[in-house]
């Protein structure tokens, strides 16, 4: 049996929304090359919604599929809704991840969260 679900393979082979956003409203980075996976998420916010979500990912098949899935799940959502995306929900949407990959590769939700926090910090800074 292959180690990855069909859904993981599909996203790995055809990842959605890959790239960077110039002048992004928020940037979030998670992971490091020592553990093997690293993701940077970029967001564009308009009227409290994630107008665009892009990312760059260094890592295994699971890490790439997770990034792709998170970008799909988050796009168009309000910030509040997007913050509710958890690693568990991402894994479920991907029809499961291998047990040993759940923690190390499933960093997309955290990276997105960091990008949103980065945006919120900038907003707060701007108002002061």
């Amino acid at each position, binding site marked *: 049996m292959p180690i990855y679900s069909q859904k993981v393979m599909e996203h*790995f*082979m055809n*990842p959605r929304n*890959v*790239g*960077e956003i110039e002048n992004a409203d928020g940037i979030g*980075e998670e992971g490091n*090359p*020592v*553990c*093997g*996976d*690293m*993701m*940077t998420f970029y967001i564009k916010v308009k009227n409290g919604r994630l107008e665009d979500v892009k990312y*760059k*990912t*260094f*890592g*295994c*098949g*699971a*890490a*790439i599929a997770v990034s792709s899935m998170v970008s799909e799940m988050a796009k168009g959502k309000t910030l509040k809704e997007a913050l509710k995306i958890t690693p568990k929900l991402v894994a479920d949407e991907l029809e499961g991840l291998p047990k*040993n*990959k759940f923690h*190390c*590769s499933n960093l997309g939700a955290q990276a997105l969260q960091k990008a949103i926090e980065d945006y919120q910090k900038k907003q707060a800074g701007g108002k002061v």
Partner: protein
Amino acid sequence: MKKVYLDNNSTTPLLPEVRDAMLPYLAEYFGNPSCLHEWGDAPREAIETARNQVASLIGAGPEEIIFTSSGTESNNFAVKGLAMAQQKKGKHIVVSAIEHFSVLNSAKTLEKMGFSYTTVPVDKVGLVDPEKVRKAIREDTTVVSIMHANGEVGTLQPIKEIAAITKGKGIVFHTDAVATAGTIPVNVKELGVDALSLAGNMFYGPKGVGALWLKRGTRIMPLLDGGVQEGGRRAGTENVPGIVGLGKAAELGKAQMTVRNEQMVKLRDRLIRELPARIDHVIVTGHAQNRLPGHASFCVEFVEGESMLMLLSSKGIAVTSGSACTSRSLLASHVLLAMGLPHEIAQGSLLFGLGINNTADDVDYVLEVLPPIVERLRQMSPLYSKFMKQGKGG
């Protein structure tokens, strides 16, 4: 789709001649070789034929061959069994930093039992310096275990030179020859070792069978207690079909070695020359020439090994990687780290194990397919975009 198997370092395919030799022992010759009636005769004889074939492959005496279940068992048996048998003399052993886990973890287990061990480092091409082995040896050292070649980086070790150092010191020198026996000439007398491990599935024999060669007169403590199979040193009813297959593979390996390697070295050298020429920021790991004939290993910077492996697999190409993500333990290869490669580079490890079935077409196919895969992964790699920005920004 074209299928190209380039993972002969993980396991080799079973040769049809080997399979044919094994089949009767899975059918009519099912008897237990320990039995004295007629059913025991053919299996017993077959085991002794295989013992001769394996002995002949490595220039040893047949009575010095102990059949085991794998290279891993042979290594466990050697390291633990030799250390235990000599514990009244001393309780210190020496290993290298790039040994297989079956050696390294055996040393760790011995440590828990009151032994101690010293790990000898390697240089950046994965070579053990014999002088460092000399320095690691103490009064109470009883076993030195240094592999003949490392399966991950292919570098061949100076076993003869190390044997010259251990000689006359009352030390038993074991070498893990799982990557070399049946593949390149291995002669225990020329190497000067006292014990040597080999495994059938590394040279077109079956899985689940290996052997430990032990120089006549060398004491070892059995790992398995039971009956008196294998001269009382390895109990358990023999894996007759496996042993027969190992013997046949040894015979064919010896006879065909020169021809096999001539072709493989050409393909290997083409990969080692062409991949770095076609893809920027590719490092050849291990020794450039002094390496296994079918072995080409690289680190591709800014990308991760498993994603390369999977994209190659989607094109019908089988390779392996020493990246953290590929390993079940999620740790980067201890071999690459011991050679001083930083984690982020070790993560881009890619390992090609050529075999006797590979052709120049296969290598051309890899050279055609891999560059766009690397390019695609680099386009989505945050490490690569950082590098490009820094590089361009000065």
